[in-house]
């Protein structure tokens, strides 16, 4: 396997004795095989002060182009439906889409190299934190754009951000406790569905789930508890008791 070429002699005759062809070839190969990071990766690397963390961020399943396009399509459809029927669909969809994205920021069940990443210097907890924040931020921006485009009132446009935070925290807590991204998606979606249906049952309106000011404090408490659970589930286990 290891290249153990003769040192210092070029084909066809003697060469300078201080030329190590292995070293030369490795230098050439390094230049040829070197991947040039894209603009987003370079920017993330500067912001995070870690090229490794930036690379891990850009490999997040829910930040890949296909996922982002799917999110835009879902929210775009919600915008069209809201414009045509008046039903505020974007605020109902945005937390669910974000919760799924956050759950898929977590490795087990979705990252084939999870076992290996657990042994890396850049810890999986830090990777998860950065990924979750990025997914949350992107989904919040896309949701706000869709919500504003649908012409909803300000209370509706911004009202779902707090429920979204709670649902995302729930999905993350479930994923980390269950050690499965799919569990996180299921629990997050189920939690949001139950909340919306409960609001509908009590007030007769789906929109109560994200416009009722009474729910803000419970949402915030739920978000804080779920974040604490996620922190606990991803704590660094003591190597020695």
């Amino acid at each position, binding site marked *: *396997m*290891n*290249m153990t070429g003769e040192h210092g002699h070029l084909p066809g005759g003697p060469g300078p004795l201080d030329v190590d062809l*292995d070293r030369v*070839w*490795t*230098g050439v*190969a*390094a*230049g040829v*095989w*070197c*991947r040039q990071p894209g603009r987003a990766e370079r920017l993330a*690397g500067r912001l995070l002060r*870690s*090229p*490794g963390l930036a*690379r*891990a961020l850009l*490999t997040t399943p829910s930040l890949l182009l296909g996922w982002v396009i799917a999110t835009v399509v879902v929210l775009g459809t919600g915008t069209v439906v809201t414009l045509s029927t008046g039903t505020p669909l974007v605020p109902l969809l945005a937390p669910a889409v974000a919760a799924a994205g956050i759950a898929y920021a977590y490795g087990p069940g979705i*990252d*084939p*190299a*999870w*076992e*290996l*990443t*657990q*042994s*890396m*210097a*850049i*810890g999986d907890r830090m990777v998860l934190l950065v990924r979750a924040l990025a997914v949350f931020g992107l989904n919040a921006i896309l949701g706000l754009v869709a919500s504003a485009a649908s012409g909803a009132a300000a209370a509706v446009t911004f009202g779902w951000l707090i429920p979204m935070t709670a649902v995302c925290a729930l999905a993350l807590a479930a994923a980390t406790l269950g050690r499965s991204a799919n569990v996180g998606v299921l629990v997050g979606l189920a939690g949001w569905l139950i909340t919306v249906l409960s609001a509908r049952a009590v007030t007769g309106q789906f929109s109560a789930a994200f416009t009722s000011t009474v729910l803000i404090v419970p949402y915030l408490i739920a978000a804080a508890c779920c974040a604490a659970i996620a922190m606990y589930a991803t704590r*660094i*286990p*003591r*190597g*020695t*008791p």
Partner: protein
Amino acid sequence: MNVELTELTRRFGRTEAVAGVDLQAGPGVFGLLGPNGAGKTSLLRMMATVLPPSSGTLRLLGRDPGSYGPRREIRRRLGYLPQTLGYYPGFTVAEFVEYFALLKDMPSRQVPRAVAAAIEQVGLGDRARKKLRTLSGGMLRRVGIAQAIVNEPELLLLDEPTAGLDPEQRVAFRTLLREFGQRSTVIVSTHLVEDVGAACTEVTLMDAGKIVFHGTPGELIAQGEAHGVGDAPLERGYTAVLAAARS
């Protein structure tokens, strides 16, 4: 000593996968032998800081992996090949090795050269820009080895590294192991006793979570001279030690 294990235990429910293991290892190539379920993989995963021990003490490269800072420092100097290598099918060989070099926190300027050197060391230079989904099982194993050695680790942990390699590749791989063993601690878990005989300076035999033999390959061979069963001297030593441990 790069590896110091004292009374190391790992339980999964009621099952004790690793039962009070004591082990010390400095530079060299150490073979970890044992039947299926002996606890080799659990022991290796604890040394890779992937699995925390249930009890006992573990010191790696002179540090306690239980604390964040030392653990990170250990991981920078660690190479690990898991038994089952998960990979990203859309990555090329070079991208995959580079990804883990970056996650090992290598200085980014050193990464391209280190990636190229690691890929060449495992003989995949002609496949460096091929997608992982196009590679055979043996080639994927070599990609796994490349990511493990990309940071020139001081502690190299390899779980069944030669699974899927053809005889020629295995011979070359043993050479690579011996080279690494001159400056690093290399611990190789394997079922293949011939790998141990050819590459390892010491061998540890595990059964039911315990170490039942520790010594040189020559000493293991000597154990089987009287009543071992097997085709090769090391196999006879292996079976004799296991039989004695179980009797």
